[in-house]
């Protein structure tokens, strides 16, 4: 008597083995976060939405497109065996430098502001304009640097001083380019990624001290130089100064105060979706991008914003667990890099609106409006998923 195959046998045979090890937790969290983000971007950009002037949905539609593209990119990256990236990392790294160099050159040479393929925005030249979309190579550079640094740090068993410095130099080159563009927020992200990965890589404690001193000197020198835009410095210092005198700093301080008023206005339960008065009045600048957390907090209240943070926390926990389970150091360091990147993004973006971090614009992952950031973050998660899925192969 021929037995019918068990249901599980059929199931197992129909699915590729690879997807069996996918981390549902990561997918669930990121989908939840992205969905909140899409709603919030819509709320921040729909305008007054009166009978005469219907709600603006262009940002909503594009954010949905970004999210779908990002999700697809995550899938593609996850399916790709991360170990093959070790060999590819020099190519990726070279490509990043090739993409950054022209922008840096344009920024330093002071080319026309409205250059059609590389316009200047807020004094920063960090974007390419391609077929109607804006691409920010430094964004993707975060993932590239994670892969390259992970490959470099995991290639030898022991990391001595020379190796460590070489690793830092590896990051310093693209950071130098970005510094000249100059994009302060992105630089800080690179520093955070590097710091996290170096710590995890098993560098000796005394070497870590050297790294910290070096970083301190670097940041000091960077701030002291005239390279950074006045408003960038003003925002940065406004965070520390309760009543600044400089006009730029006053403006930055006001932005932070407006953000906190919006957040406080949300209270425990929030004003309700699309009902945030501060959001509707666009009192907080850049509320669909850097200050998006103020929208979440105002409209969804403490319950909503804390839930979002909780989702982020759970996502990081999953990533941390995947790092722990990684089959090799390369995979582990990739996860540590993505973990550090996300952690810094979240803390900087949320902390800025809450007034516990300086004002420097970086997006809240999966929530802020923007294609480059969305794709970068999904790509990073794709790497993490790949590490997880390929750990037995």
């Amino acid at each position, binding site marked *: 008597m021929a037995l019918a195959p068990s249901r599980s046998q059929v199931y197992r045979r129909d699915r590729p083995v690879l997807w069996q090890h996918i981390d549902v937790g990561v997918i669930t969290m990121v989908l939840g976060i992205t969905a909140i983000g899409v709603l919030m971007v819509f709320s921040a950009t729909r305008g*007054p939405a*009166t009978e005469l002037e219907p709600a603006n949905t262009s940002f909503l539609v594009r954010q949905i497109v970004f999210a779908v593209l990002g999700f697809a990119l995550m899938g593609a990256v996850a399916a790709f065996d991360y170990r093959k990236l070790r060999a590819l990392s020099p190519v990726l790294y070279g490509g990043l430098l090739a993409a950054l160099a022209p922008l840096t050159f344009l920024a330093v040479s002071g080319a026309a502001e409205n250059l059609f393929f590389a316009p200047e925005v807020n004094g920063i030249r960090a974007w390419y304009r391609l077929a109607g979309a804006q691409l920010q190579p430094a964004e993707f550079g975060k993932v590239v640097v994670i892969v390259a640094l992970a490959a470099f740090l*995991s290639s*030898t*068993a*022991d*990391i001595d001083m020379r190796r460590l410095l070489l690793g830092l130099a590896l990051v310093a080159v693209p950071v130098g380019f970005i510094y000249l563009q100059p994009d302060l927020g992105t630089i800080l992200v690179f520093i955070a990624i590097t710091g*996290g990965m170096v*710590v*995890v*890589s*098993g560098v000796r404690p005394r070497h870590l001290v050297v790294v910290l001193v070096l970083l301190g000197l670097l940041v000091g020198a960077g701030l002291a130089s005239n390279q950074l835009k006045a408003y960038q410095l003003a925002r940065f210092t406004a965070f520390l100064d309760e009543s600044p005198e400089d006009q730029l700093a006053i403006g930055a301080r006001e932005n932070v105060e*407006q953000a*906190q*008023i*919006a*957040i*406080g*206005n*949300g*209270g*425990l339960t929030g004003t309700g979706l699309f009902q945030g*008065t*501060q959001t*509707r*009045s*666009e*009192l907080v*600048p850049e509320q669909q991008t850097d200050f998006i957390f103020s929208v979440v*907090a105002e409209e969804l*209240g*403490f319950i909503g*914003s*804390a839930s979002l*943070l909780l989702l*982020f*926390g759970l996502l*990081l926990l999953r990533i*941390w667990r995947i*790092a*722990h389970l*990684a089959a*090799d*150091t390369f995979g*582990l*360091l990739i996860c*540590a890099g993505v*973990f*550090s990147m996300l*952690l810094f993004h*979240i*803390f900087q973006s*949320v*902390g800025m609106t*809450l*007034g*516990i971090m300086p004002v420097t614009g970086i997006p809240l992952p999966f929530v802020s409006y923007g294609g480059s950031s969305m794709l970068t973050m999904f790509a990073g998660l794709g790497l993490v998923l790949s590490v997880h899925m390929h750990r037995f192969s």
Partner: protein
Amino acid sequence: MDIAAPRVRLRLIGIVAISLFVAMFARLWFVQVVDAETYQADAVANIRRKVATPAPRGRIIDAVGRVLVENRLTNVLVINRQDFRRARLSDKEAQAMFVRLAREINRAGGLVKADDLAAAADNNNFTDLERIPISWDVPDDLLVVVGERPDEFPGMAVVQQAVRTYPYGNIGAHVIGYVGAITGGELERSKASWEARDEENPKPYRRRDEIGKTGIELLFEDQLRGTPGQRVFEVDNVGNIVRELVEERREPVPGNDIVLTIDIDVQALAEDELAESLREARKQEPDPGEPQFAAPAGSTVIVDPRNGQVLAMASYPTFEPADLIDGVSADEWKQLNDKANNSPILNRAIQSTYSPGSTWKLVTSYAAFLDNIYGAGNVPSIGQTIPDESAYILQDCDEESGSCRFQNAGDTILVGINLVQSLAVSSDTYYYRIGEAFARRGSSPEEHAENPDGLVNKDGIQETAKLFGFGRKLGIELPNEKAGLVPTAELKQQRHDANPEAFPFARWFVGDNVNLAIGQGDVGVTPLQLANAYATWANGGTLRAPSVVGQIVGPDGEVIQDFGPRVLSSFEIDPEHYGPITDGLIGVTHQGPPQQGTAYPAFHSADGVPFPLADFPVAAKTGTAEVNDKADTSIFAAYGPVARPEIGLVDVEPRYAVAAILEQAGFGSRVAAPMVARIMLALANGEVPPAVTADERTAAYLAQLDPDPALLDLLPDDAVLATTIPPGAAADDPAEADADPVGEG
């Protein structure tokens, strides 16, 4: 590299992550839960902007329901700076736009300059949320021009706005008053800012608000002023309106209407007669060496003795309230208040005091009854007659007061003077005796209080004057009423003590009492007091507070307050006293030659309509007050119809008490009396001509210029031209001015 080490190190970044998340949660909890209320308060202040919506001011209506002041809708060109900025015009483009706008207005018949429009649009008194008026009374064409070409005129609109309008022009201007923009001082006094409005103070003032400046507009400001509505808008970070918080919208409530006791027809008649009589008085030739009859000003008041209601209150010169709506310039202000220009803003009926002259004899003759002066001393008893040799020398005169000889106003010798005749033909010497008797026989107030029947009150005339309402504010519903003055010995002493240089004499002389007895000297009365005193006599002794306001009516027509008569005090008149005095007053108008009553000619004019004295007997008194270095004040007080049982007229009671005082106009019998006779004739016959409206005046004026009636039909109903015609232009018609004066004699 051993993977174990990195796994251990992972814990480090895990710990970092946990601490950062704890920090975020803690801060979030603090901002959103602990401190939420503070932030929420800030959030509300952040986005809400209150805008007041003006409420229409209440109307002022005459006793018969004719609207004297209402609100006219006019086209106002306004700018919304927010929308204007959105158009992002360069300075040059903006200037060009204002030039185009001015051209459109001028083409449609307005008259503006582009620079003025631009300057008005820049007015810093307004916020960007408000519609800023930049040109008033723009032609209707602009509604279309601006309304249909928003691209050409960004931020511009023509809206209709209510402004004060006066269908009867300047008739009743002093009673009505005028409105204007609130001043800083008035705003300060109103002591309430817009933000502080509440239940008790629902309509505080804001800058630019309209406020009553004089007259009813001032005194009933609280009633007339509407309760402004409010609209609350949510605005964004640059002040653009995001939406209106409709649930917080409050509709404006129109102010209450004030119904006057004034009959605008009677008012118009009184004003016309007053102006006309002054004009006629100026034509008199003074005796050689006597001052000119300048007749610059005057007043007449008509009171209903039955209830104290004022039917008409005229003051000359007058002003055009419509000219003052858009603010009073420094020149206009000077013009209105300048004494050299006879202060047109002054309501002489209540704000000017005059010596009442012989009209005061009503008080003196009655005082003499109350204190038993008749037959005492040098005063003849009732019925006893004396000759009036036109001069009287005081007994035992000590000369200290400067004069012991008192002379009648004229030097006519009168015969057979008793109390009745003393009033009818106005004998001064009769009253010199009474004044003297009060001074010589009067005891101190204390002694008099102990023995009121036995001793004469030294202040008898003054005390009696109080019964008639002299020397006090009567409490009419108009601002700045004067109390007038009834001099006493105490007062004279006080004034001397306070300012010995201006008042060199401390002592009250017999001569002071003699002057007082004939209404000369320091005694001062307002025209209203005079009319009201005769009304008090006419109604048998009830002193009422005269009123100009009958009712306050809400915007829905509901009567909010009804002002009944207000009795201030009353006294019983002994028929023994009433008879001879009233007979004397009747004699003034009735007693014919040979020794005729002083107002007999005025009421028996050879030409014109005869006065129906048989049906409408008038009791009256003329007065001629001397003023230093100026022509005499012409005074007349009258009331009627008075019952005359002796001719079978018993069923009437006086309905009108009239007083007229004309400055530097000569004898009361010559100017004031004929004027009052003409007014009372119209009242007696029920033939008061309808008041001429401002529109009719305009039409008449235009007809004079171009008598083609077809052109008049083309005039819009609310012809704006009215304000461009000089006040009284129509009345200044030379043909009218040449008409024979009535009642001279």
